[in-house]
């Protein structure tokens, strides 16, 4: 059983990391656009980004299943029931959290700093990388950690588009559920213990970051 536990844990951590790194770029960009720009359709973008947060994960899973299933617009990518589906589910569920945490961080960077950097000759790109992002850094990291934690615990959408195939797509939360569902209490308890330890660590690090 230990080998299986290690495999599930390692797999879950790995895909969660990939998913978080994957949403970092789009998420930061989205947060910055929402914080600094006005444009027609802005409310639409805000709502779309928020959606996975307020919809039941299973509903989000169904949407993704339709979109990436054999008859959907992205069916050709071969995502369903592979590790890519796990990453997708985690990314979709984590993105809103990243954006929601990073956006206020960007909004709180005084524009005068950005203007000052421009007055010193910095291009908009240089202003972003050398002034805006560093000053919003803590919020961005906190958002990424939140997205990562969410990814570790992601269940509803994952089970829908990735399934629960041991060794392929089985993640920690899904494994806990299937073990409990079939009365394998010992296994469920062990998985639960690992899950709690991971969640605790992530939350602890996040809090330390916010305090320092």
């Amino acid at each position: 059983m230990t080998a299986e536990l290690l495999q599930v844990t390692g797999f879950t951590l790995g895909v969660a990391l990939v998913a978080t790194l994957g949403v970092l770029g789009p998420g930061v960009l989205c947060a910055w656009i929402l914080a600094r720009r006005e444009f027609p359709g802005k409310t639409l973008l805000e709502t779309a980004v928020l959606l996975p947060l307020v919809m039941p994960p299973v509903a989000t899973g169904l949407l993704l299943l339709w979109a990436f299933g054999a008859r959907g617009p992205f069916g050709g990518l071969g995502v369903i029931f592979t590790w890519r589906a796990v990453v997708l589910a985690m990314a979709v569920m984590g993105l809103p959290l990243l954006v929601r945490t990073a956006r206020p961080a960007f909004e709180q960077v005084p524009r005068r700093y950005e203007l000052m950097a421009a007055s010193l000759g910095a291009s908009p790109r240089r202003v972003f990388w050398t002034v805006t992002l560093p000053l919003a850094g803590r919020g961005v990291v906190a958002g990424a950690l939140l997205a990562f934690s969410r990814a570790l615990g992601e269940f509803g959408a994952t089970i829908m588009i990735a399934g629960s195939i041991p060794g392929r797509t089985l993640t920690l939360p899904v494994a806990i559920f299937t073990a409990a569902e079939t009365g394998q209490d010992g296994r469920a308890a062990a998985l639960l213990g690992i899950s709690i330890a991971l969640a605790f660590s992530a939350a602890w690090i996040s809090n330390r970051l916010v305090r320092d």
Partner: protein
Amino acid sequence: MSMSLSVRLQLTLRQGEFTLTVDEAFEARVLALYGPSGAGKTSLLEAIAGWREPQAGKIAVGGRLLYASARGINVPVARRGVGYVPQDGLLFPHLTVRGNVAYGLPTTGARPDAVDRVSAILDLGELVERPVSTLSGGERQRVALARALVASPAILLLDEPLGGVDAARRQRILPYVSRVRDELNVPMIYVTHQAHEARAVADQVLMLDEGRVVNRGSVDLLPS
């Protein structure tokens, strides 16, 4: 050797209840912008720097058009060549003094010793590696001034640089401004509500009150 600059300002700027209207042309090494608080001095500086867009008008510095509403010209802040030292200095909190001062160093055509030269003129010496949060008000202003100078601006705007400094220290900082004028030959617009300060550094003055220019000319016009 005097290095005076011609400046043309013709603009209307509204902010809430307040309207600033200016139609002036002048040539000076250092122009003092003199008037009580609320006269519109900071707004005028921000318009020249490009931080604020007037409702309409024209801004030209050294013969170069920075803003012309009739022709749809509005040069982006980064390309104006206008250095700005605001009242609060606005040092980047996440960089050291050195990081701040060197920030505006042009990527091409900069003198290799530009940072050191400016730091020497402003006596930054041992401040250089310090984090910005440990600086006193006066030190902060000198660093902000150095930072603006390293970027080699065509004109330098200073907004009440001695405003945050207590009376005793003001006397020690004023000479630095004179040094910048004399050793670096950078034309300046210097905002102050203290007449003696204006007399000490400037050759021309523009007097502002409630959004309008009420007098202009040689610094001798100022009350003593």
